[in-house]
């Protein structure tokens, strides 16, 4: 009985079920992919740490060389300890920077620093892809991407340079070292993952040579020259001589999950998606409220008990959650594997295993992530349905009118958390010792208040815009205005999402501009001498691929949600379309009507977003107290505000353009036969 009811219910709300299922699946897939990529990153970390000798129980960076301050160990001692203690997995790694391309001028000798290492001991390992390790003087193994950059093959020769630290000009001159390439190692990058591998590996003979490329030379005050190396020593267990200089600290703790930087974009997308799903559940649920109430009333009239209907709703949810989890988890693993495979293809000679790592407990988290929103989403339509009067449910009155009139939030209520929050923040920060919990609570109140004010504000704004539109002389705009005035809540969700997108874009721009500006304040001369341009740098950092991907994902999600809401709204109000057609609206005008209904809230949302962005930008500038950087003679204030505005405008324009297209598609596709059932 309950199973059959649940099935019937699923069938009755097929479109909504499909939408919800798709979004939930997407959410699970994104979370699973993030988690799987994190587990894979965690698997990669000890592997790459091993190359640099960072994966052992103990680690030391002794002072090695002949400096007057009595070095901890000489190079010979280091090698002896590492080699004469078998079973401890000991390794010594000499590292240093070299450059493949000399800089353009004496003051910028190095354009690109490559980490070059050499290791010795039983724990030594290099991720060799082809050829052999560098074992004697003048031999080198290049990482695949480094070799590609130099267009070098095994058997060829390359020259790497390093600053001559001891020459009279300081670091101004470079000394070239010629090498024969004997092997190719894994690439230093794996797109989508954080990899830290050397660009080249040379023989220990060269590395430990005081005249070799990895030795540092210092000129003492007495005029004599000293030599030193950067050496990492690592081992397991107890080695007496090394224990004296050891730091008992495992450098890289390797947990179950280590999120690569790129996963921030994934999490961002998942968060937007989750928010959007809940918003959509409310909006779509509302537009179907009386339909659902009618369904419940009808089924009850035919003998179903209220409890059976409730249980069947939960069963419906569980079915959706189960399918979303199964498909989403499989899809997410596939997505992560695809990301890994593509990264490996892009890397050429990739580092690490070819398959992603799975983690049971983390998949369980993804399952929970499916279940919680599913529960919320399933209860929302029932909640709305319960607001429709039972007598109204069986009347041939259509859709949401009952629900629409049943609830009003006083504007003051929305603003209250904002005021309380402001007071709390002021209290928390005004005392000499700032009271952190009060401040945090205050900011949470401010955030909640902001959302409430934006939501309520949009309701009023939409009504106002509706009234303006309904005074238009165009029948389509007039009808759209009537719709917006009559059902402002339907438009709220897309409007709020648009505001959030634009504000977020502005905040992101602000953040990047501020970090560029402070960077510049620190290194101004340096940056200029590198020929770096402030605005170009800002543009590059703002339009980072992860940021762009998140922004695009966010925009798409906004559109998916807005379309779903308008679509369900339109289906619910189809009788009105028929009536309007009979009263003289053409099909094109009906399409235009719904285009306006779909697009207008996005326009309002974007405009409000711009205003909010400007407000937040100025506030942030006032708090951050940015000093003007004089690169290019731009005063910080005006420049920053211009940048924020540009970022926000770009997001708004992209959103509105995309919105115009999807609104048109929704309006056109929803244009079913006028007189059909």
């Amino acid at each position, binding site marked *: 009985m309950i199973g059959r009811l649940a099935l019937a219910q699923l069938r009755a709300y097929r479109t909504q079920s499909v939408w919800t299922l798709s979004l939930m699946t997407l959410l699970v897939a994104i979370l699973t992919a993030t988690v799987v990529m994190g587990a894979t990153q965690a698997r990669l970390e000890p592997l790459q740490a091993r190359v640099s000798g960072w994966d052992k129980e103990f680690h030391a960076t002794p002072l090695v060389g002949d400096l007057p301050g009595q070095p901890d160990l000489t190079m010979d001692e280091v090698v002896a300890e590492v080699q004469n203690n078998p079973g401890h997995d000991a390794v010594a790694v000499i590292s240093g920077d070299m450059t493949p391309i000399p800089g353009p001028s004496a003051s910028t000798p190095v354009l690109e620093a490559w980490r070059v290492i050499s290791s010795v001991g039983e724990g030594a390992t290099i991720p060799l892809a082809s050829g052999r390790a560098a074992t004697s003087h003048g031999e080198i193994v290049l990482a695949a991407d480094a070799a590609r950059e130099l267009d070098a093959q095994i058997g060829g020769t390359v020259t790497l340079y390093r600053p001559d630290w001891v020459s009279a000009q300081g670091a101004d001159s470079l000394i070239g070292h010629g090498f024969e390439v004997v092997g190719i190692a894994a690439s230093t990058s794996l797109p989508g993952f954080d990899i830290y591998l050397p660009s080249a590996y040379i023989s220990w003979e060269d590395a430990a040579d005081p005249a070799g490329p990895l030795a540092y030379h210092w000129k003492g005050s007495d005029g004599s020259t000293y030599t030193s190396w950067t050496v990492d020593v690592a081992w397991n267990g107890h080695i007496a001589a090394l224990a004296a200089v050891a730091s008992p600290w495992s450098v890289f703790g390797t947990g179950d999950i280590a999120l690569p930087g790129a996963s921030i974009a994934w999490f961002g997308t998942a968060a937007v998606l989750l928010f959007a799903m809940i918003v959509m559940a409310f909006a779509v649920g509302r537009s179907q409220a009386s339909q659902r109430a009618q369904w419940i009333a009808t089924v009850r009239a035919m003998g179903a008990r209220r409890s059976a209907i409730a249980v069947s709703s939960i069963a419906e949810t569980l079915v959706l959650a189960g399918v979303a989890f199964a498909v989403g988890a499989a899809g997410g693993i596939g997505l992560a594997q695809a990301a890994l495979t593509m990264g490996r293809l892009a890397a050429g000679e990739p580092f690490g295993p070819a398959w992603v790592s799975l983690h049971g407990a983390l998949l369980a988290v993804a399952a929970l992530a499916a279940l919680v929103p599913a529960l919320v989403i399933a209860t929302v339509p029932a909640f709305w349905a319960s607001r429709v009067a039972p007598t109204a449910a069986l009347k041939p009155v259509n*859709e949401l009118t009952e629900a629409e009139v049943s609830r009003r939030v006083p504007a003051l209520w929305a603003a209250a958390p904002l005021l309380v929050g402001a007071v709390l923040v002021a209290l928390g920060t005004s005392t000499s010792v700032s009271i952190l919990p009060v401040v945090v609570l205050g900011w949470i109140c401010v955030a909640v208040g902001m959302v409430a004010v934006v939501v309520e504000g949009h309701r009023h704004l939409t009504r106002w815009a509706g009234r303006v539109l309904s005074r238009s002389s165009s029948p389509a705009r007039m009808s759209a205005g009537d719709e917006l005035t009559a059902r402002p809540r339907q438009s709220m969700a897309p409007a709020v999402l648009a505001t959030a997108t634009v504000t977020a874009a502005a905040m992101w721009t602000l953040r990047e501009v501020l970090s560029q500006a402070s960077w510049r304040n620190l290194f101004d001369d340096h940056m200029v001498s590198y020929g770096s341009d402030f605005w170009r740098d800002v543009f590059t950092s703002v339009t980072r691929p992860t940021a762009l991907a998140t922004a695009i994902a966010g925009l798409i999600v906004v559109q998916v949600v807005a379309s779903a809401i308008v679509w369900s709204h339109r289906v619910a109000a189809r009788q009105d379309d028929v*009536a309007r*057609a*009979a009263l*003289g*609206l053409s099909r094109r005008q009906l399409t235009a009507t719904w285009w306006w209904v779909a697009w207008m809230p996005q326009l309002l949302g974007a405009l409000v977003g711009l205003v909010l962005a400007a407000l937040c930008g100025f506030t942030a500038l006032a708090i951050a107290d940015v000093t003007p950087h004089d690169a290019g003679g731009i005063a910080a204030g005006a420049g920053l505000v211009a940048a924020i505005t540009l970022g926000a405008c770009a997001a708004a324009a992209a959103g509105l353009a995309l919105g115009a297209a999807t609104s048109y598609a929704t309006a056109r596709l929803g244009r079913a*036969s006028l007189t059909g059932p």
Partner: protein
Amino acid sequence: MKDTTEAAQPGDALALRARGLTKRYGSGPAAVTAVDHLDLDIAPGELTAIMGPSGSGKTTLVHLLAGLDSPDEGRVWVGDDELTGISDAALARVRGRVVGFVFQGFNLLQTMSARDNIMLPLRLNALPTDKKWLDTLVDMLGIGSELARKPYELSGGQQQRVAIARALITEPRVVLADEPTGNLDVHASAQILSHLRASCRELGQSVVMVTHDPTAASYASKVLLFADGQVAGHIDNPSREAVLAGLDALAKVER
């Protein structure tokens, strides 16, 4: 059946004309021919009633005549304007200014008050508001005290009267009404039908109304008996008894 090409002459003084009108729903074995090669002439100033069993295609026919739906075959004219094959915008113009439509399910806009519903055709078609005509309609239909209310606050009969007012507010040449008196009491329906008959005679308006009520049909100057998507017969200047007899005959044919 008349030859359609011969009948398609312009300049006819007919209010409504249809030739070879056909509408099918669905496909395969489930296909339904709701209107089947139908020819129809409605003279100006005539009140025509369409009667027939449920599911015989009456609603489909009036939708086709109003240009709300497009036929699979055949042609429709409203006055001299052919509806078939014209642009969507031109069709909308006819629906808005020439034809008034009363839906079987009223189709009032739930978010608008009764007054706004009645005035909507004027707004949508940028027509001037004739205050006197509005008052006349409201008086005649007896909905003066209901104007500020929303449709879901009205009874079925009151909604029906608002729907009739909305169809008449533009003073259309042709009124198509799908069971306009289905939810009304005897007195109210008599008033409305008298009014419709009067405006046919005096203003030359043409009214086509679908009805199941022989008394309502007796107000018409002509009753078309409809069965299986075709006109099975007609009664001129019908009395209630003649209509009943006609329906009886139709039922016998059906069997």
